[in-house]
């Protein structure tokens, strides 16, 4: 069990406090206070490791104010592994129960400890949620103002809840699908949790695009959560448990690539070896797994994605691209999604100012830090509006939900789509013409 005290001190020492991370940190930008910056947080962690400071509620608050966007990791010339420090700190905080409140503990147990550990239960909860949204109960609850009986955090979030899809990935994608002609590659497709419940069509689109590029696509089911939510929220043991289940379900040696289309998942999925380095039984398989995990855009560019002959829309459109933090900073993938978008006929890609600045979604950040999340969302919406684009492409379900809501509330008619969905539309329209 790694804690700030037992973590290899070199990871903390790697930060030589040059300050290059400061201008890229959204929370430092908001307050201009060092505590709210990466080097300030690392200094606090180092003080804790050195025994100069104890784990306090204030430190816990600071670590939940951090978005975990990892923009600092891109900026850091010294190569500090902030992701590892961040997760270790949050895990220490959970172990010490510094944020303990009965309701928080209950909701964490329900979500992280149960729903996101059991894919079938999660889908069942998704169906219940959909029933609530569709049956008229939701409308009635809102009409009669019954949300005032919810805890304040839930009452605020209730109208933000994403629409749950009618059918999930396992109903849209067969376990094995073969491309036309001979298969050049064999890949496994990971369908995610939020992606599966809210945007299962993105998974269908990914399968279609992979098939159109000569990949045989296996989509094992039911897939566990990858554990990213758990690792980010200080539940390291559960994250390890989920990684083991994933490795059992999807043996890496069977595939040329294990493909994920969600930036947040991919960033975590690529580091199973680090997560399981103390696990003798899984260590080597985790290493092999890390080598096989590919972001969908990355994989398509690697294998020479075929340019579609048709445009995704009947009319020319302008698209701009928002970098999901964990795709850009966590996985260093910024060029490939743009390359795919530029490949599409009838679509003009325009640059987005501050495209790698967090939109405020950041996992459960919108729940835990609503004010900062809203400020970041407004900034993102203003940048998108100034491009004049009518499509916003982004490759992470959290960003997709957050930005779509922001644009809707600002009265902007901009479609929010996954780049792979645009590509899939274009391939489909090849047959129409």
């Amino acid at each position, binding site marked *: 069990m790694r804690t700030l005290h037992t973590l290899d001190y*070199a990871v903390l*020492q*790697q930060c*030589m*406090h*040059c*300050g*290059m991370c*400061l*201008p890229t940190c959204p929370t430092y930008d908001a307050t*201009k*206070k*060092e*505590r709210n*910056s990466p*080097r*300030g*947080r690392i*200094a*606090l962690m180092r*003080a804790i490791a050195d025994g*100069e*400071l104890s784990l*306090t509620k*204030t*430190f816990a608050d*600071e670590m939940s104010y951090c978005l975990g966007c990892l923009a600092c990791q891109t900026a*850091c*010339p*010294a*190569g500090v592994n902030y992701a590892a420090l961040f997760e270790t700190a949050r895990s220490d905080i959970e172990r010490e129960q510094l944020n303990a409140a009965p309701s928080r503990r209950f909701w964490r147990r329900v979500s992280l400890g149960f729903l996101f550990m059991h894919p079938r239960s999660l889908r069942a909860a998704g169906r219940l949620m959909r029933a609530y949204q569709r049956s008229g109960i939701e409308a009635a609850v809102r009409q009669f103002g019954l949300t005032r009986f919810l805890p304040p955090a839930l009452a605020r979030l209730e109208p933000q809840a994403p629409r749950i899809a009618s059918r999930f990935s396992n109903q849209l994608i067969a376990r094995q699908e073969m491309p036309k002609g001979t298969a050049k590659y064999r890949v496994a497709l990971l369908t995610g949790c939020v992606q599966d419940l809210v945007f299962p069509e993105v998974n269908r689109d990914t399968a279609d695009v992979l098939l159109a590029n000569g990949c045989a696509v296996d989509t094992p089911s039911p897939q566990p959560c990858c554990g990213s939510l758990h690792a980010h929220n200080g539940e390291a043991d559960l994250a390890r448990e989920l990684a083991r289940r994933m490795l059992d379900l999807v043996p890496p040696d069977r595939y040329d690539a294990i493909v994920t289309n969600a930036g947040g998942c991919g960033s975590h999925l690529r580091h199973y070896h680090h997560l399981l380095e103390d696990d003798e039984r899984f260590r080597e398989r985790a290493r092999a797994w890390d080598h096989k995990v590919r972001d969908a855009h990355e994989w398509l560019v690697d294998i020479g994605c075929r340019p579609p002959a048709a445009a995704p829309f009947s009319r020319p459109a302008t698209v701009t691209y928002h970098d999901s933090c964990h795709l850009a900073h966590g996985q260093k993938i910024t060029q490939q999604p743009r390359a795919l978008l530029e490949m599409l006929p009838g679509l003009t890609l325009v640059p987005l100012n501050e495209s790698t600045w967090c939109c405020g979604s950041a996992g459960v950040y919108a729940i835990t830090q609503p004010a900062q999340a809203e400020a970041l969302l407004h900034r993102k919406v203003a940048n998108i509006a100034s491009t004049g684009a009518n499509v916003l492409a982004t490759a992470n379900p959290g960003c997709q939900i957050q930005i779509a809501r922001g644009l809707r509330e600002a009265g902007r008619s901009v479609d929010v789509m996954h780049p792979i969905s645009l590509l899939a539309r274009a391939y489909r329209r090849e047959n129409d013409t």
Partner: protein
Amino acid sequence: MSREGVLDALASICGADAVLSSAEDLVPYSFDGTAALKMRPSAVVFPRTTAQVAECVRLAAATSTPIVTRGSGTGLSGGAVPTPGCLVVCLTHMDAILEVDPRNLTLRAQPGAITQRIDEAAGRHGLFYPPDPGSQRISTIGGNVAENSGGLRGLKYGVTRDYVMGLEIVLADGQIARLGNACVKDVAGYSLKDLFIGSEGTLGIITEVLLKLVPRPLARRTMLALYDSIEDAAETVSAIVAARIIPCTLEFLDRVTAGCVEDYAHVGLPTDCEAVLLMETDGHPAAVADEAAKMEEIARSHQARDVRTARNDAEALQLAAARRNAFAALARRRPTTILEGVTVPRSELATMVSFIAATAARYELQIGTFGHMGDGNLHPTFLTDERNADEMDRVHRALDAIVTRTLELGGTITGEHGVGLAKKPWLRQQMGDASYTLMKQVKRAVDPHGLLNPGKMFD
């Protein structure tokens, strides 16, 4: 007055949310960009106006609380490292660019304005603020003036001092002084603004700056020359200067540094040659083309293995940005990174470079060297581990040898980072007794109670 009393008074001057006093808030203000130096301050305050700064200074004077002024805390000599029991006056909230005056070619800004934002504001009027320290994306102009920061363009454009026309200063007794003005010529009285430039926060607190701007160059060309020997690179620099060419940038990276920078930035720096020269010329397009051709020719005649030209502005900017992060990128190799900034007359560059290599071998240390070769300003950087006492002892002895040799060659212990705490032991050796004493007399005259950044530069 008790600490609580001081905190209450600060809160009534600047507002309660502008005062930090908890351990979690103070630990992150215990250091600046300098390795291995830290001290927790007593409190941090964020004034928003010159009047608030003056009131904070009066309060500090009345309670004998030392003041350490701070911007973004990126300094590399310990200038913003707190002294025991001090109040940190952090000026990051005073960050407005107040005016760009294209008729007088000046820009007025508050001290917390970010260096790069200043150049961007100038650029919107076709103007240019040339000093570009490595940390320009986050460093503040107040800090730049207090440290008289240099940068990559010093060779042609000079350093921060060459662009300061006026300053507003809060003095140690809380009075507000305005020094200098927008006149190109001004010989009225002592040039007091020059006293405060590079004073490292020991004489007053800069609360506003008036900067000189120059026309933005119309063209630039950036080249990389690769060498199998460091001496050939150093000789190239001397030959370019001797050929009466003043490029804006002549930056040098040795093999270790180039490797670390490439690991970080992936800009295509070669990692298999002993020395890389980053050369840049800017100005009128015809002059740029002419100078670039001559520099390439000189590099090739000094055994450059290859000379490459950046294909476009984006690539040129990437190369310069990568170079700016050389120091921090070196931290990839070992846990502790200790940066030097010795500077020698340019004719002595090759001698100094060889001496550094010999010193590294003699003390069995890893040193990565890079620097502004055109200025004679080198940054030998020790890659070491502060937990290894034996190695740290060798670092200190090697450092002493390098500094002593620098002074023998007619050089300076610091070209652009300041004295602060890091260079304090050698200042007297460089300055000589008379000028060292004179400097202390100036300090006593301006800050008689030793309130401002005490213990920096000298005791």
